[in-house]
Structures are given as C-alpha cells and as structure tokens.
C-alpha cells in the first residue's frame, strides 16, 4: 500500500505538491494552492499514488474508535466545582497581588514606614486578641485582689470600713484583732490590714476575719487574693 522507498524518492519530483496533499485530502486548501495541487495530481501518476495513500491514511485515522463520552450532569458539576475552587483561590491571590502592587508603587521611605506601622498594628491586634482570649485577673479585680505595686502580702486582709466610723472606733477594732494598716485607703476606700507577727498570724486570720465581719463598721473583709464576699452576706 505505502512503499516507503518511494516516499523519499518520488516526492522529490514535486515536493511543493506532496507537502500539501494532506490538506488537499481534508479539503482545506484554497486559491492558487488548490489549483496547483489539483492540476499536478491530475497529470502526475506519482502524485496520484501519493494522494491515494494520503486518503487511506486519513480514512484509517478517522475510523479509529474512541471511548464513549458525554457531557453528563456529574461532569458539569465537577467543572463548576473546579471553577468555584479556582475562583476562591484567585480572589486571595488577586487581593495579595493588589496589595503588593500598591506597596511596590510607594516611595521606599513611605514603604518602610508603612511596613513598621503594619507590623505594630498586627502586634496590637495579636495582643488584644490574646488578652481577650486569655482569662486574666487584671481585667476583673475584686476588692480583695492583689493590687499591682501595693505592699500587700499573703495573709493580709482587705477591709472596707463604713463611712460613719470614727477614728476611735477604728483604733479599737484594730487593737481587738491585733492588726495594723499597711496600705490604703485605695481610691475605692479599701484598707490593707496585717496581723501582728508576734503570734502566729496564719492561725489567727480566720478569727480576725470573723471579728471584722461582725463589726457594724465593716462593709467588707477578705483575705488578700480571696474572692470578695460582701459583709451583708455574712
């Protein structure tokens, strides 16, 4: 059918026609090229033979079966899903690209200032977020909470006296519980009392607290660091 020896030798007589034969076969040649090939094929036996081989090749290729395929709803769904995923990714890329492009257009000095500002804003956001997400005693303080910078120690007592208490009544109460004021009043009117260390302060603390809470001149009495219990709840 297709003598390979002839292929190299025969085409040399009309190479310009031979190279166009496949497109003469598929009917896409036009104008002068079509006329030239048609004329040569009608007069040259060698070109006619090659044209026949080209036609056989074309027919054989077209006769090749291929697997069945249809644009099913599942395939369309898959195509839409791929588009959706790609668009999501490209929105981020385009936003970053836009920021980067805009950043590149600014003068270097402003660029650095913006970079530092951005870093500070990011740090601030991180710090605020961290604080908001971390339970912190500094955000909610009771009267008995330790005050930063105060001289209070563990075992000390926080006390709020009533406004009508006289200085003498205060002195008598302090002597009764064997304590002295080490800090206060705070802006909220809280005093810090410390039991006299001559005796075991730790052992006497519950009694002193009880004595203070029983006094009509004490609005609140708590250990430092303990949750506040208003004197009314006694």
């Amino acid at each position, binding site marked *: 059918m*297709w003598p390979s020896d002839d292929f190299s030798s025969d085409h040399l007589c009309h190479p310009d026609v031979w190279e166009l034969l*496949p497109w003469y076969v598929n009917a896409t040649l036009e104008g002068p090229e079509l006329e030239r090939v048609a004329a040569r094929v009608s007069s040259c036996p060698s070109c006619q033979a090659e044209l026949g081989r080209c036609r056989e*090749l074309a027919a054989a*290729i077209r*006769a090749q079966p291929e697997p069945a395929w249809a644009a099913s709803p599942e395939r369309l769904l898959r195509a839409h899903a791929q588009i959706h995923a*790609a668009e999501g990714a490209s929105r981020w890329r385009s936003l970053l690209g836009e920021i980067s492009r805009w950043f590149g257009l600014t003068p270097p000095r402003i660029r650095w200032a913006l970079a530092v500002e951005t870093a500070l804003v990011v740090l601030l956001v991180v710090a605020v977020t961290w604080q908001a997400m971390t339970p912190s005693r500094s955000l909610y303080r009771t009267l008995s909470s330790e005050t930063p910078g105060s001289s209070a120690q563990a075992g000390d007592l926080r006390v709020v006296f009533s406004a009508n208490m006289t200085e003498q009544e205060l002195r008598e109460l302090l002597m009764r519980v064997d304590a002295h004021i080490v800090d206060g009043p705070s802006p909220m009117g809280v005093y810090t009392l410390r039991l006299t260390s001559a005796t075991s302060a730790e052992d006497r603390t519950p009694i002193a607290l009880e004595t203070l809470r029983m006094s009509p001149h004490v609005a609140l009495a708590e250990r430092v660091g303990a949750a506040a219990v208003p004197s009314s709840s006694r």
Partner: protein
Amino acid sequence: MESEPDDRELIHRVAAKDRQAFETLYHRYGRRIFGYLWRQLRRREVAEEVLDDVMLVVWQSAGRFKEGSRLSTWLFGIAHKKALHAFRRLARSSPEDTRALEESPEPAAADDPIQGVERRELREALGRALEGLSPEQRTVVELTFYEHRSYQEIAEITGARVNTVKTRMFHARRRLAPLLGRLHG
C-alpha cells in the same frame, strides 16, 4: 423558543461569567475536545482531567478570545497546550507508562469476518504507528485528518510556524509509511 447562541455570542457570555452559556459551550465542544485529548493521551482519566483544566482556562480567559478567530481553533489551542503538558508530566513520572497506553475500544463488528480482522489489524497497526510519532507530529496528523483543520489553523493552534507544521506532517507521513506498508505487504 430561544435559539442556540452562535459561538461568538456564547464566548462573550462566558466572558461575562454566564454559567448557563458555559454549560452550553461544554455541551457543544466537550465531546470533540475530549476525543482530541484521548487520542493524544490514550488515557481516559487523564483526558477527562485535562478537559476539566481546559474548561477552567476557558472560563477564566474567555475575555481574551480574539475577535476574528474561530472559537474551536482557540479551544483546540488551549487543549493542545494542556495535552502536551500532561504528556510530558506522564513521561517524567513514569516513562514506560506513555508507551503502555489504553487499547482503543472495539468498534462495531463488521459483517464480513475477514474484513473485520483486517480492520482490527489496520487499527492496531495504526495505533502503534501513531504512538511512535512525537506528540507534535501526532497533533498535526490528528488535527489534519480527524479535525479537518487547514495548516494555517494548525499553526495557530500549536503556536508553530506554517513551515514547521508542513515539516512535521512530512516526517509523520514518512514514519507512518513503512508501518502501514508492512500491514498491507
């Protein structure tokens, strides 16, 4: 009843992100592009995967379609690039796999058993012969004889010069000649 949009209107609507138009385009060209990809790659799942990639590019780049071009030429151009890329990726990942290609599905049985055997032999010989071509040569042969494309269109699809297209076809024919000749010898 609303008539089907022509290719130009269709691609403009796709460029405007009209999903209905995209589906129409998929229905209109999906089968042909899949066939082209399958003949290039000879693997159904790979051809389907590449078809999805082609359609994604169509969706994203429809606005870049040049007026005056044929939509099918533009689509085949995208498919050609994606197929070449897939072919090279396959060749890199497992070189022997590019030779162990899927068999062509069996065509409808011929009435004459002898004719049926000859046809099968011809098909198998041709399949082997086509596999022996470079991807670029195979592309030119397929686009010419299967898709009936002019050499100018093939140049546009493949991004090659017209003379390069003719040269590839010439070498492909020379390589196919002895194989087909042996079948009938």
